[in-house]
């Protein structure tokens, strides 16, 4: 990637911050995509099947919906994030204790399923889709938003019972992964265009804050920086590798930072 044009794109992406509220979401997403050009990640899934992708995209879109505040989990690439997590070490319990026996135990004893997260998703999605087919005559992703919320509420609280995996267990995993995917560094495939960080005002990779920490109550309106921004040299860094954050004024949409 050519360095100056990448840097220009990074600076231009500033427009997506303060301006989020004034754009309808699809426009915002399309514009952000255009700004980042070739940086839009590949969408080839490694573990989830296409129907499973449809389920996960539909579910995370309800857990963190797109609205006037900005993109939701679906737009932020959370389904793709989850796929990559499932395919990797976490999805196969690489650092977890896996020996049996496997009684269910008490809630205080935590994760006791013999299923890996990979299997929890495969089985959980299958069973929830079967429930939806029976209840609504359609798979989860084809339901209305209100019906989808009804199903998710049924899983969260255990009102809808699944057979091979406890519904609350599956739901908690899905919700935890959705939050991770929305807020983790974009290097993992989620938090696309730093949508999660922009929503809450988190600057991502930290700068040196020595001069700011005592500025009590003063908003720190920084353009968030990702690991990739630094690796690709689109964000400027100091001698220790900390990015030099670009600060915006309180109501500054950053247009002056563009080229």
């Amino acid at each position, binding site marked *: 990637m050519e360095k100056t044009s990448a840097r220009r794109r990074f600076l231009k992406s500033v427009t997506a911050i303060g301006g989020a509220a004034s754009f309808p979401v699809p426009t915002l997403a399309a514009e952000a995509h255009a700004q980042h050009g070739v940086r839009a990640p590949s969408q080839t899934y490694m573990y989830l099947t296409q129907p499973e992708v449809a389920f996960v995209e539909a579910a995370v879109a309800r*857990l963190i919906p797109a609205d006037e505040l900005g993109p939701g989990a679906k737009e932020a690439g959370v389904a793709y994030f989850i796929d990559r997590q499932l395919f990797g070490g976490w999805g196969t319990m690489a650092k977890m204790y896996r020996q049996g026996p496997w009684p269910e135990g008490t809630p205080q004893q935590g994760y006791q399923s013999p299923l890996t997260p990979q299997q929890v998703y495969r089985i959980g999605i299958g069973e929830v889709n079967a429930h939806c087919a029976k209840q609504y005559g359609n798979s989860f992703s084809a339901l209305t938003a209100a019906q989808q919320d009804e199903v998710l509420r049924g899983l969260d609280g255990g009102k809808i019972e699944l057979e091979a995996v406890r519904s609350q267990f599956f739901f908690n995993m899905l919700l935890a992964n959705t*939050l991770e995917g929305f807020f983790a560094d974009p290097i993992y495939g989620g938090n696309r265009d730093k949508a999660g960080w922009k929503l*809450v005002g988190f600057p991502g990779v930290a700068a040196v804050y020595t001069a700011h*920490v005592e500025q009590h109550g003063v908003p720190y309106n920084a353009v968030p920086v990702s690991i990739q921004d630094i690796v690709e040299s689109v964000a400027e860094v100091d001698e220790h590798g900390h990015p030099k954050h670009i600060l915006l004024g309180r109501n500054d949409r950053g247009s002056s930072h563009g080229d």
Partner: protein
Amino acid sequence: MATKLKPVDVAIVGVGLTGTIMAKELAESGLKVVGLERGHWRDTDPDFAMPYAHDELRFVGRHELMQDLSRETITFRNNAAETALPMRQLGSFRPGEGVGGAAVHWGGLTWRFLPWDFETRSRTLARYGKGQLAEDCTSQDWGVSYDELERHYDRFEYLYGISGKAGNLKGEIVPGGNPFEGPRSREYPTPPLKSAYAGALFKEAAEKMGYQPFPTPSAAISRAYTNEYGATINACVYCGYCQFFGCEMGAKASPQTAVLPNLMKQKNFELRTHANVARVNLDAAGTRAIGVTYVDSRGREFEQPAEMVLLCSYVLNNVRLMLLSGIGKPYDPAANTGVVGRNYAYQTPSSVTLFFEDRIFNQFMAAGGLGMAIDEFNGDNFDHSGLGFIGGGFFSAASSGARPIEVRPVPRGTPRWGAQWKQAVATYFNRSFPISIQGACQSYRGNYLDLDPTYRDAYGLPLLRMTFDRRANEHKMSLWLTDKAAQIAKAIGPSKMNVTPRTEKYTIVPYQSTHNTGGAIMGADPASSAVNRYLQSWAVPNVFVVGASAFPQNGGYNPTGTVWSATADSILEKLHRLCTRISGTGH
């Protein structure tokens, strides 16, 4: 078939906070020392290099620096009537793995315990009588006093360059510091960190209420400092990737920044990583250690003969190695006899989260130990008459690092997901902060560690089994302390508060603190302690068991300062004497 290696004077199991200081001091005095570490070598460069050091998912969510449970974990149950099941993923606590141990990813809060903490039982009986202690409470005195430990605390603070403000200099109360601390011989080596907004508001409110706030002592330090070993710890830049992370600046004092640069130059020290110690080998009589057996990363088994063995692993693994090796009599809670596994304790953390509509806190600008604290409600600093509990904890408004996967508070009653949740998290991520309470935990007859009858580690050895729950003492204490904290919070004037005392059954799931204690406790009586005041096993005197495993119960502070001072540094003189005698060399 084990390969027998050339004998050494000292074999150290675990090269973390305590293992590094023991190795450095003993090797320098001329003893041949081998450090056996089951994890790998880690250092500021390249392991904590930018920008990868600032990856929350990797270090917090996926526990990059922490114990690999696929190989070894513990089993857990709330009480002996239940069947213990394995902790399959990390939750409540996060032990480290690799050189530096958990002191790589620690938060850096560096406290001294109160003089009272070392004499919990006798001072409670003296002030309140027997009725104040629960019948099954086994909390006891340490067999060592604060005054005896003061110079070791002092040494730790000066070795690690700790930032703070003295509150009691040789008995004289100093404004701005903690007036409740035991007398200290001198000021902290580096001044306190800068003040964040949360701490400033807490300080103002606490002072108005008549309390005496002070800056939390921190191992992420305020300015560059060079210690007696010639190691330089840099100045903290408040990046907020501190607790659970390695520091890219070398600004968080740790074995890597404070000790290893010197230790690795010691000619008499050899570090062996990927060396998983399976047991301490004893002589035929079972009263003397002759070395340790370990397995390396290629599956080769080695027998390392040694004149002396120091168990410097994490609390839980220290106790497990004693049990696997037959060092000391295992604790039997039914008969209340035996000593190994006795007095396992933990901590009772609770919090009040304050939410505001219009104030911005930038809590992501942070250091693990950045904050303002009060100590009015710790130990026996307040009258417990009629309260029905003993102990307490410090309160602090900390800015220890707000990263949105783990830290995104919303007011109670907010849905866990959906549009309403999204609105709340967008509003409050940057408009909230917690007041945290580091509540103490007493020891009880039914809380203990032993070997699990069912589950095994990757080498086929039994896992350690933890039986633990907090008692009425802890729940009452938490309710009372958290209410006091809520009064301070209210005075600060938030629009909403989440007041969260700790009153439910202990659960292994959400993170609470990596402050496990006990199981190989120190004391003056071999019938009620596993090790003496010098952490020397009563049963096998050339084995020393170093670390928080020696705490008879847990205080209302982060334990690291006390781990290093009370359990490591304070036994070195004794070790020097013994080593010289045992090896007969004097080198």
